[in-house]
């Protein structure tokens, strides 16, 4: 696996973790990870942007049903 792929996977895992109920300590640890290196932040931003992009899927699904 390339280091970029590993980083992207890690960022996506962190993003998914933050979608759920997260203990403050865990949230803090993820924020520390993002802040540690701009490469982490960029990978995290990609994951979050992709998620936000699909916000409208719910509306489309509602229109279909």
């Amino acid at each position, binding site marked *: 696996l390339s280091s970029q792929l590993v980083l992207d*996977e890690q960022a996506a*895992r962190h993003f998914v973790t933050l979608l759920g109920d997260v203990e403050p300590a865990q949230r803090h640890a993820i*924020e520390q990870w993002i802040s540690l290196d701009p490469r982490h932040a960029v990978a995290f*931003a*990609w994951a979050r942007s992709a998620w936000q*992009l*699909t916000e409208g899927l719910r509306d489309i699904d509602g229109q279909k049903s």
Partner: protein
Amino acid sequence: VIDLDERLAWFETDILPHQGALRARLKGMVSSIADVDDVLSETLVRAYAADDWSAIANGKHYMFRIARNILIDAARRNGIVSFGFVADMESLQEDRSTEMGLSARDRLRHAGRIIDNLPLQCGRVFVLRRVHEHSLGEIAVEMGLSISTVEKHLARAVMLLAKGVAEIEEWGVERERRGVEQPVGAR
């Protein structure tokens, strides 16, 4: 934490949407796709790390300027500064194009196609969480998986979606410029 949230929000709003335009421009200037990826990645990292990010009025111009500086540094290191290269760098610096690639509606439609083509369990987990708003625990029960496995599938779906979106943005910019066929990955 406030700075982190604000910086991420700025980056996602003012920088990332222009990466497709930059990638499309770089393709005509940089010799191999691997180099394009390297320059683009380094550009995004430097943009995110900017000390004065909150004072940057035009994210696209800022990002293009960073890319230009990276290319100039690389050319100097390799001793390959030609007249053509200088002209390319000037055009990159002066890029005033306003293309934004795809509309929000097009992006969503393409994102839907990417999701349709995700590995089966990844796609199912993603739709249950994102569209039907089931919790990870509910999805785990429904699919007979552990929550940890559900998280892995969802993370993989998010990662694959992000990669697909990046490619589609680039295609959108090129389509706007020249009118090209839809990329295979977006079908």
